[in-house]
């Protein structure tokens, strides 16, 4: 699993690639919380996510909750089909701000 962070106009883009599971989700959690903790708007690019389990979902939820608490924008962009199925099944598509393109996401978070 790869977890790359880049900056686009002050917005942290966290690109996840591969399986986000019990083994890899602590790394994702750490990266997301670091970005949110730095009071930066965060967009998680999930186009490369081939699998996500409940521990991966929990990492996203924790970052979302932390962002809300600190009035920081947090969203998901280009969510892969495999990840979207999991989010939809748990109705988390109603919780996260999900954008089909990075440009839409950047527009939403004001980047």
């Amino acid at each position, binding site marked *: 699993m790869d977890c790359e962070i880049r900056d686009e106009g002050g917005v942290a883009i966290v690109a996840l690639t591969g399986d986000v599971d019990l083994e890899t989700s602590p790394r994702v*959690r750490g990266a997301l919380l670091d970005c949110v903790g730095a009071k930066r708007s965060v967009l998680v690019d999930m186009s490369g996510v081939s699998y996500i389990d*409940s*521990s991966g*979902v*929990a*990492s996203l*939820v*924790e970052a*979302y*909750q*932390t962002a*809300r608490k600190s009035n920081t924008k947090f969203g998901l962009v280009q969510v892969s089909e495999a990840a979207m199925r999991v989010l939809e*099944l*748990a*109705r*988390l598509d*109603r*919780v996260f701000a999900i954008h089909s393109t990075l440009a839409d996401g950047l527009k939403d978070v004001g980047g």
Partner: protein
Amino acid sequence: MHIAAMPSMSVPLATNGDLGEQLELLAEMGQDFASSLDIGETLSKALARIARYLDAEAASLFLLDEHDRQLVCRACFGPVNITGLRIDARRGVVGRTVQDNTCQMVRDVRLDPDFAKSVDENTGFVTRSILCAPLSVKDRRVGAIELVNKRRSTDDESDGLFSDQDRRVLQVLASSAALAIINARLTAAVIEQEKVRRELELAAEIQRNLLPRRRAEDFPVVGVNVPARGVSGDFYDVFDLPDGRIGFSIGDVSGKGINAALLMAKTASIYRCLGRTIDDPGRLLALVNAELCETGTRGMFVTMVGGVFEPTTGRLCFANAGHEPPLLRDRLGEYRAYPAQAPPVGIAADLFPPEGCPVTELRLGAETLVVFTDGVTEGRLGDGSPVGAIGVRRLLERHRTLRPTERLSAVVAEIVRPGHPLHDDLTMLLVEGPLARGQGV
């Protein structure tokens, strides 16, 4: 410079001198180590025995800290008490002894550039010579024993300095002490593990007691829970309402371990408590959500289904908050899934409308509703393949002629097999319509 180093391999105890006395000392120390439960006290005793036997004015025993960065004085003998003193694990004659894992004999400390003067400066003690042996077993180092200043005596043939014979004796005694320290640490670790295991067992027992008691064979709502570890993050509950209806819930807490188990206990208790007076499962889930969000831990949430069943009419109402879709089996063996209409509880208070989440109402005749956690769908069958959503239906069909409790047990037995540990907790709940009951659908 008079510095001598010698590897801490096994050495003959004595080539001259009183072998009987030395063996007696070794035996006494061994007995102390074997019989005492207080390693600190035993080390102090052993250090005093060694110092007296080798006529040292002072002695100290240093152990490496948990990061191997510092040496901490754990026992002391002589006029100055430096117990608790911490020094850099690479400094001084003691540090060199540990780093090189060899015995160090310094006949005149003024000529040794590694000698740390600070202790003498702070205490007024005057160190002239040092004999220091590593506390180690093969390459496993735990510290060092340092003897300071050999006492002069009238019959001393070695001009008041530590001798090679002293060095050999100290090496053997230090090896014995090192082994005792390592054993004591292993014992302490085993005791600690056992304590944790007992606490987990107790937690698991308390958790099992939270599950509903077994009912009569024809009771229409039954469940099963198999934890993957000692404690479970899954739960199910079944309780009677005053008007004869049956309340039920099933849930899966995100994460594993004790924190998930605690949240599981809390969520099930809140639902059961509120469920005795509020019969709308959608409103109940919203109230549970509000309560969890007020006192919850970030990143932890619960997917759950709550419902009420009226056994006489077959009327069933349930609400699904982010949980695996319950399956309704009709009289022809067709299955229909009911996906969640609300997110899991415990994420944010404003995700649920005040009136509660949507409720599905069904009338069960010969139909059966099965609700389960993802430990079932993600479980493995005998051939190693995942159960999956379709697999659950196949397993239920395979055992459809069995009574509800036996049916659930049979499905579980296909997933929980000896020698194949579960990766996730596994929970199932079954609600059977009045016409399906006892007929083996």
